[in-house]
């Protein structure tokens, strides 16, 4: 599990995240929804330890900047993160070495095969299309088997096969007890498996909805548009 407590992130006078608190339990999939500029990517980067912020983020009880937290965290960035001059397989080797893993080869093979990258093992990062780079990013983030996985717009640029595969992976992670956080614009892409949805507006949570309520409640889509397209007071 991981817990975000009163996180505020400012860029000069602009507040990107304002006093955000929430937690994602083991085996739970939380989604962050919101229009462009709502602050979704910022809070995800704060959780990943890439930005400074006020407040606290604990990953399985450890502060997010601690080595213990880093060991169990997987982060898939919005922009694919690949090295131009490493081959696809060398990305896997690098991650395995950096995380001091043993016997990683089979897992790497399996991940690459799932994302149809097994025949691209010897391709350099710079030779890959944006979608393929995104697949490599996902494989890098999942290779060390994180207990907490955070995805920032993971489906952008992916082909239909990879999207299907990624959706299966979300479910598998959930079944394995991993805490999953997904930021996305695409409401329909997460409708099958989300447990809790947080709708963000102007850097704050405007609403939180759980996926086990009665049918007379507004759907996720209805709630989203009622918040994001509400007439301004």
């Amino acid at each position, binding site marked *: 599990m991981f817990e975000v407590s009163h996180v505020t992130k400012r860029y000069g006078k602009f507040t990107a995240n304002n006093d955000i608190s929430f937690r994602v339990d083991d085996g739970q999939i939380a989604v962050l929804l919101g229009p462009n500029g709502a602050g979704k990517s910022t809070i995800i980067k704060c959780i990943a330890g890439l930005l400074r912020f006020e407040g606290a983020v604990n990953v399985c009880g450890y502060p997010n900047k601690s*080595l213990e937290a*880093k060991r169990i965290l997987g*982060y898939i960035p919005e922009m694919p993160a690949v*090295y131009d*001059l*490493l*081959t696809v*397989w060398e990305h896997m080797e690098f991650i395995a*070495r*950096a995380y001091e893993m043993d016997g990683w080869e089979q897992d790497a093979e399996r991940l690459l095969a799932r994302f149809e990258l097994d025949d691209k093992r010897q391709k350099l990062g710079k030779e890959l299309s944006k979608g393929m780079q995104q697949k490599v990013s996902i494989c890098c983030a999942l290779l060390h088997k994180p207990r907490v996985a955070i995805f920032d717009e993971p489906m952008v640029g992916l082909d239909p096969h990879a999207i299907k595969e990624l959706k299966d992976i979300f479910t598998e992670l959930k079944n394995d007890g991993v805490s999953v956080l997904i930021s996305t614009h695409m409401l329909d892409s997460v409708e099958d498996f989300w447990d809790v949805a947080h709708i963000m507006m102007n850097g704050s949570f405007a609403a939180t909805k759980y996926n086990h309520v009665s049918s007379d409640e507004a759907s996720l889509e209805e709630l989203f548009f009622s918040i994001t397209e509400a007439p301004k007071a």
Partner: protein
Amino acid sequence: MKALTYLLSRIIKNSLREFVKNPGKIVLALIILFGLAMTVLSTFSAPPLLEEARDVKELIAIAMLLYLFIFLSGALRGLSSGGTFYSMADVNLLFSTPVSQNKILVYGLIKQAGVSLFVGLLLIFQYPNIRNFYGLGPVGMIVLLIGYCVTMFCAQLTAMAIYSFTSSNDKARKVLRAVIYIMVAAEVLYVGISAYTAAQGEPAQLLTAGAAAVNTLPVYLFPIAGWLTAAAYGVISGALVPAVLGCTAVVLFSVGLVAAVVRHHSDFYEDVLKATEVSFSAITAKKEGTVAEALPKNIKLGKQGLGKGQGASAFYYKHLVEERRSRIFLFDMNSLIFIVVIIALSVFMRKAGIITLFISATYMQIFSVALGRWARELLLPYVYLVPQSPFRKLLMISLENIRKIVLEAVVIFIPVGLIMGLGPVGILFVIIGRIGYGILFMAGNFMIERLFGSVSSKVLVMTFYFIALFLIAIPGIVVGVLISSLLPNASESVAVLGTAVWNIPVSLLIAFLCRNILNYAEMNNR
């Protein structure tokens, strides 16, 4: 034309407005202006460094080399992606409007002329060297500057025309490429043979003979670079004929190219599309902080796999693999250019002494260090995510750059030392001095990340970086001057060594104080 004048005036107005609102940019502009003013003032207030000015033909030869390099590197793009005067917004918005293509071409030419002029202004920083060595007055400097701007402009125009006429004809492209290469090879052969014959086997005379060979009709006939060199020589030395002929040839060539593109191949939109996309991705990469690495066209994979490294050291072994794939000989393209330029400069600056050359080399080193692999590592998330101590990670991502700094220092200063007659001890001293500055610049980068890691303005951060580097380097310079003045008969290389006495310990101290930057820094996506 109304839409285009509106667009141009709006771009200028909004750029000015944005500039006024941005304190970082104002500070940077003031620093550049102050630097330019100081450069010009100090040049005129101080007596020339050399009692007797060197032959101006040497300077004209250098200008020819510069013009030729800029013209060829720009024009040859016409054989691959083409040249462009346009931004992606122009392509997407302007090209689809019912505005005449010819007017859009004029708009592009005006924009390009503005860019060329702005870049050329920065050449003024070289004025002190030019005046000190060649006694060139302000008019001469302006002439060289205009030549530089016109070369840049013509290079883009030629690239566009070449692409326009050859993009759909593979054979024409091959023939044109061969013609250009043969012309360059013929010029090089001509200058080489003429210089060798005139020098009569005397190595000391080769430079003078080479400069004389460049200042002859066969070289002046080379399109654009040769014509502009002839014009510049004509104006500087008061010879009317080459000045008039050179200028006329350039004007006729440019007007002819524009007319040819417009008349025979009026649909130039497709021709500039690819080049615009290429420059757009480069600009986007720059904005995102991911300055594209200068890589060889065909990268050889070579041995695959990192092979070694566990934890933080995996970064070092990864860097070694990347470095092997990016280099051409022993170094990557950027370093190779810096090395060749410094060694070439040492030939011209033999009499000026090692300190003058060392200053120029150190100035270039600032950029070479900032482009290091360790700095690129800060742009991707892995270095922040990997569960290792931040200090170990910092050390490991710096190690490859330190190795490169040492190797570069040796490769540069052994030949430079031999050319300038330093002797083994002198060479060793300047190598240590060079390593000292390399490490200092890296430490300066760490400090800036530590102090301004969360500042989003790239301009502001760069301004602070240069001010901070300047301040940290001053004590080293003082130490160098003191050591050389306290030791009787000390050579200039002792002063260079003296700077390292300050630079190396203070760099280590800064690195230690910034040991946790990877915990405090924000992922650098400026």
